[in-house]
């Protein structure tokens, strides 16, 4: 609890300390960047500390961190001239409501996720140990770049900026690293929530005339953004529950159940499995929550399925691997905020560099450079997307000022370079020590997302976006450039197709590469992969059609038709509402491009498949589309006019039924877990059946009533709510499943190492001892099969001491191969197994090992000969099942 309060106070301090800066730089945003001051404060603080430590001007310790914080405070103080303080104070007084909403949202989001983590805190499984290892390695390293925890003698080769910020918060708060891990997850959840809230608030308020007081509904409506981003999930959970309940199944005469629908849907873990006839999906092994991240499947030409990851924010937070894509979330929202500020004129000004005069203000540009560079350092994949968004926003301003011409495209490219180069230079020390695993691009060919998977994945967002685009198109009196948009979209598809098929054609003609490529595609002997892949795509055109429609509608809204009263090649009048709409369309288009690109090409990495590309691109698309979807939904509610009785009553009833369903469902779920076999019978036999049916029935009723009473916007809003409701099934069901039911609520703790202390207490006592020792290289067992996702390398993970070799697979990924690892795995085996002291000493000297850990894993993994350690080394730590020997080479 104390740790939670300390972190909350820290976040408050950083946010308010940095507010003078955001107030000054986000002048076009109605919120003046208040919700973004926290993430930007963390980014700037982290940047200052990281840069100065990397340049050996600061030590990686508390004093160094506080020095960087003082520098940030000094910067904000310098901005707080006398006049600025009064302006700031006046703004705070006028915007108390917004401030209160943001602070309350932050508190509740932080508390909520801290609670969820406290019920399931273990830093165990998937890649949590890797992230814990990074954090502890950063905390222990005397300077930057930090030590690689799992390959001694090397620096981390990964985008570790997020872990630096996490380590800084852990150190300054005095929390144990294992507690800090879970608080990081909770805090990032809260930072993302407020950033999304602030973004939608700005979009909605910026549309209003300046003289108009902010309508009260905007404060509530803005909650749609964090809800859609962080809580609403894909439809997998909804389908999972439908499947479990036995919908769309038919029973044959012989009693076998089958379903054409589920077979066609072909969802992993669901299709091909008999229903449980229970509301709560059961799984062998008990893990239900995982499936939603494996909706999309790639199929080789021979029908083999390949794994593709399609995480979305709720899943990622539930999994709680604080991976770069999670750590980057608040900062990409900050970048979106800066793009919005740019498009609304917040960057307008003049900067003179030698003989060039840039039409933008320097401080805003600098902030964008630091943010974009930070995003690249947090999660490199995200960098080009938000660079493009900011550049597009700036070019739109140019369009407004000067009219459209081909020059705007040149300016767009120039802006990208002008922002990218300094962004890279600002973070140069990172690039000097980083080796990427990416190795070019490959054509997707056989790998494409089938329409059904695309809609299951993005349905809750596509519904409001497509409805919004159509609605906008129909509402506007001015006709849009439909024809031009059509041709542009078609040309885009054609170009991508030509590019992808062109590369594939060339690849198949190359002797060695051709064979590899064909085997990757699963092409049979004599089969033409190009035509086979095209045929497969034509059989499942859903994604292509959806994206075509989306891009076409989006471009139509942007482009004006020929002969319009205000030609595009002339300066355009500034209309805030139109500008906001354009910005949202940019978000939609960018998301569209992100989901379109992997249909044709993907980045080559160690896996060789689309797995990582889909993972990273779809995640960013979710962020962009959730903002757009929330905006359109809010617009629908705004446009429907004053609320009628039924338009309040029906949603209220839906909410009530939803709460009842949640309670009953979870209550039943607990009972189900206790008594594994729970057969409710066919649909319509359990009370919950009627409640669930009632919810969806009411939503359809609502839509119909709105439509009949000519409140079309209201009908659209109802449809959106229906889509969201289907996306809310997953959070409820999966959270309960992940936490393990109500039993998890009895022992709440944020300590991620508690599980280890309960099951391997001696090992953790050794870890505690190592934490007090001077930094040195340690050695522990390495699994024969690599050790990834297991408890191997736990001692290094929690102590922060670099080990000779950790998880082999991950080390190979980071390094782009096995070269740096050399013979470490074999040498470690020799060290533990040999009875020849000279051989063992040679290994100790080769890797400069100071601490030799001997525990249960070492005894299990090797034919352990511990006697040589006892004879020649000092025993630093001893307990029943763990010992640490200390070695000093005496060079």
């Amino acid at each position, binding site marked *: 609890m104390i740790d939670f309060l300390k972190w909350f106070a820290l976040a408050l301090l950083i946010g308010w300390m940095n507010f003078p800066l955001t107030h000054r730089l986000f002048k076009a945003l109605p919120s003046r960047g208040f919700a973004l001051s926290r993430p930007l404060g963390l980014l700037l603080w982290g940047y200052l500390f990281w840069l100065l430590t990397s340049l*050996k001007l600061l030590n990686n310790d508390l*004093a160094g961190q506080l020095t960087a914080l003082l520098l940030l405070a000094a910067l904000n103080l310098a901005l707080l001239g006398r006049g600025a303080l009064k302006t700031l104070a006046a703004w705070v007084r006028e915007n108390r409501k917004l401030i209160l909403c943001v602070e309350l949202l932050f508190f509740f989001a932080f508390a909520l996720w801290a609670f969820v983590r406290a019920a399931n805190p273990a830093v165990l499984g998937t890649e949590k140990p890797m992230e814990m290892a990074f954090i502890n390695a950063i905390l222990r390293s005397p300077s930057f770049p930090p030590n690689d925890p799992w390959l001694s003698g090397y620096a981390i080769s990964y985008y570790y900026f997020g872990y630096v910020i996490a380590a800084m918060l852990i150190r300054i708060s*005095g929390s144990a690293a294992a507690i800090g891990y879970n608080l990081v997850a909770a805090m990032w959840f809260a930072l993302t929530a407020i950033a999304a809230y602030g973004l939608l608030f700005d979009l909605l308020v910026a549309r209003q005339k300046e003289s108009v007081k902010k309508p009260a509904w905007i404060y509530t409506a803005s909650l749609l953004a964090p809800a859609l981003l962080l809580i609403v999930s894909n439809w997998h959970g909804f389908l999972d529950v439908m499947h479990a309940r036995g919908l769309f199944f038919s029973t044959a005469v012989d009693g076998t159940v089958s379903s054409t629908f589920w077979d066609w849907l072909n969802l992993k873990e669901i299709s091909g499995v008999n229903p449980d006839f229970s509301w709560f999906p059961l799984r062998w092994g008990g893990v239900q929550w995982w499936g939603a991240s494996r909706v999309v499947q790639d199929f080789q030409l021979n029908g083999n399925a390949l794994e593709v990851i399609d995480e979305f924010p709720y899943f990622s937070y539930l999994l709680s691997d604080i991976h770069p894509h999670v750590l980057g979330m608040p900062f990409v929202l900050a970048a979106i905020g800066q793009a919005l500020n740019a498009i609304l004129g917040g960057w307008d000004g003049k900067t003179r560099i030698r003989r060039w005069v840039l039409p933008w203000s320097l401080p805003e540009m600098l902030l964008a450079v630091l943010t974009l560079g930070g995003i690249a350092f947090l999660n490199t994949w995200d960098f080009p997307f938000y660079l493009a968004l900011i550049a597009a926003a700036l070019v739109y301003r140019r369009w407004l000022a000067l009219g459209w011409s081909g020059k705007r495209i040149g300016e767009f490219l120039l802006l990208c370079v002008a922002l990218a180069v300094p962004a890279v230079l600002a973070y140069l020390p990172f690039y000097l020590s980083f080796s990427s695993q990416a190795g070019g691009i490959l054509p997707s060919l056989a790998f494409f997302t089938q329409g059904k998977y695309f809609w299951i994945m993005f349905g809750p967002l596509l519904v409001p976006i497509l409805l919004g685009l159509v609605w906008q198109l129909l509402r506007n009196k001015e006709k849009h450039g439909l024809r031009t948009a059509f041709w542009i979209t078609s040309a885009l598809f054609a170009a991508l197709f030509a590019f992808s098929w062109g590369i594939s054609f060339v690849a198949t003609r190359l002797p060695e590469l051709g064979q590899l490529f064909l085997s990757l595609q699963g092409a049979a002997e004599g089969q033409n992969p190009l035509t086979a892949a095209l045929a497969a795509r034509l059989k499942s055109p859903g994604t292509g059609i959806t994206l075509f429609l989306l891009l076409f509608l989006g471009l139509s809204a942007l482009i004006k038709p020929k002969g319009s009263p205000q030609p595009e090649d002339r300066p355009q009048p500034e209309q805030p509402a139109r500008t906001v709409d354009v910005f949202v369309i940019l978000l939609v288009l960018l998301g569209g491009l992100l989901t379109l690109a992997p249909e044709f090409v993907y980045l080559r990495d160690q896996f060789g498949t689309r797995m990582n590309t889909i993972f990273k691109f779809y995640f960013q698309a979710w962020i962009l589309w959730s903002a757009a979807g929330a905006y359109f939904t809010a617009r629908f509610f705004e446009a429907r006019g004053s609320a009628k009785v039924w338009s309040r009553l029906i949603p209220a009833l839906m909410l009530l039924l939803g709460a009842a369903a949640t309670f009953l469902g979870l209550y039943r779920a607990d009972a189900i877990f206790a008594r594994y076999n729970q057969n409710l019978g066919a649909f319509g036999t359990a009370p919950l059946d009627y409640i669930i049916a009632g919810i969806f029935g009411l939503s359809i009723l609502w839509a119909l009533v709105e439509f009949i009473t000519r409140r079309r916007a209201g009908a659209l809003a109802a449809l959106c709510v229906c889509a969201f409701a289907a996306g809310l099934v997953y959070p409820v069901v999966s959270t309960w499943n992940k936490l393990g039911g109500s039993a998890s609520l009895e022992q709440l703790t944020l300590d991620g190492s508690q599980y280890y202390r309960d099951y391997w207490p001696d090992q953790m006592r050794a870890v505690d001892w190592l934490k007090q020792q001077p930094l040195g290289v340690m050695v522990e067992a390495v699994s024969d099969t690599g050790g990834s996702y297991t408890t191997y390398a736990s001692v290094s993970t929690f102590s922060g001491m670099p080990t000779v070799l950790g998880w082999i697979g991950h080390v190979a990924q980071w390094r782009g191969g096995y070269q740096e690892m050399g013979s470490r795995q074999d040498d470690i085996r020799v060290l533990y197994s040999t009875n020849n002291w000279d051989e063992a*000493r040679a290994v100790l000297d080769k890797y400069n090992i100071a601490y030799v850990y001997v525990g249960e894993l070492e005894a299990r993994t090797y034919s352990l000969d511990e006697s040589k350690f006892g004879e020649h080394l000092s025993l630093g730590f001893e307990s029943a099942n763990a010992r640490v020997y200390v070695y000093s080479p005496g060079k």
Partner: protein
Amino acid sequence: MDDFLGEGKSKNWYADARLIILAIFFAGLCLRLVNLGKIPFNTAEAQNAYAAFLVANGLSTGTAVSPVYEGLSAPTFFVLGAAPFFARFWPALAGASLALVPLFWRRRVGALQAVLLATGLAFDPVLFTLSRQAGGAIFTAVGLIWALSFFMERKSIGLGIALAVAWLSGSWFWIAVLTCGIGVGIYMLTQNKAAANGLANACPFRTKTFREAAGLSFIVSLILLASAFILNPAGLSGIASGLAGLWSSSQEVATIAYILPIYRVSAYSLPIILFAFPAALSAWKEKDGRGQIVSLVAGVMLLSIFLFRTQGTAGYALLHCLLWFLAARTLENQILLEAGQKDIALGAFLLGMAICAYLAVSAKSLVNPAQSALTVGPSAIAFILGLLLLVLIFILIMLGWSLQTARKGILSAVLLSVLAFSFSLTFLALKPADPYPALVWSDSSLQVNARAQSLLLNEIEKLGKMEPQVSSVVITDPRLAYLRWEFLEYRLVEVSSALPEERAPEIIISSTPDQEKTAESYRGTAIVNHGSVNWREVSLLDLLRSAVSKSLPAEANEYYLWIRQDLMTGAVP
């Protein structure tokens, strides 16, 4: 600020006061340099000095606890070599420089008060002792007092430098800022708005040129000092080391007993508080703004010393500086007091001195260690009678002649006696053999027998078998790491629980009497080298005795010095 300006005395006084203050400064400096390197180091001093040594030799070290100390000492070691004298040189110089501050104040407070203030700041036992410790304790007071002086004199560059010195002195800078803020805040609350505005309007920071010059000199000084004049660029972390120290200690359990600050204040600060109190009272009576602020800040500072007792001893130095500002006024009033009958006053003074001497002697026997408890015995009766006699004489003179005569005579004697007692503590700090002042003013253990160890090692070096430049030392217990300071000239000094495999070190230092597992044999010697007082265990009676007798019951800890056998016997390894 006009009400802060005092009225100057005659031109002669002005000229003489400057020379007198300079002479006091030199005397204070010389006194500080006497036996500077011979007083035993405590473990904190050894750690600070060793860290500066590492910086001077281009080796990495963590962020300094007191960056200004490291920033000044490291370049000195770089140029002149590391030695105990140089390790304490800068604190001594800084502490002595306090005596020059009244040069800036003489126009405001008058020449006499300036001289008295200079004397107090030069010879005050707390300021004296703390300025002979290898650490940053004295720099907080020095930096802040100089900064205040430059601020009053509108010297922007000096202000910047002094502020940087104070900022980098350690966590007490932040405590002092908080304390001063509270003190000034209370003062502002007691004043009317016009007075408060007047104070704010007179602030030189309102001028842009002043702000810029002060800011620039502050930043440049900060960078130069924190980086030890670029010897240690990573030392810039030291800019926030004070804050970091305060931050981390707020999350730890206090390890300093309450009784220690109480003892220090009782034994060292009580006399000066007695001097300062009348001045504080009259400042409030006469609505003297300067005196009011100083007294408020001193009061809050006293409280801070107890609350932040784990943060070191710098607070005491600050407290004494503030108290001397007030005490100098009391002393000046006493000296300038016109007695109606000078002969009677002189007689009363001499009599008072005699009685005070008698009281001093009887106080010593009152706390005779032979007595197990304070009892009302002959010593106590003698003491009380002495006090009564003094009071009686005061009353008689007051009734017989005048109150002024009684005050001039008796009070002068009392004040002078108390002053003599106080300054006797200063001279006590000069003796290396007497550990009392070092024990009182160390928060860590005292190495009372470092010299014995040095002598032993010198003897072995004379045998010709061990040359420090090629010898290595291994310290097996991290708690003894501070001993690295004693082996500066050795080739390699490691702190490691494991002994090197390839070559046995010449010297091993351990905390246990068992020889470490080695191929070679070693001969061990127990070094009783720690002196520390267990403040939680010492009784109040013992503390009272010690305050009078100037000796504290110190506990000795020992460690073991192992020397390789062949170096002592001449055998080939």
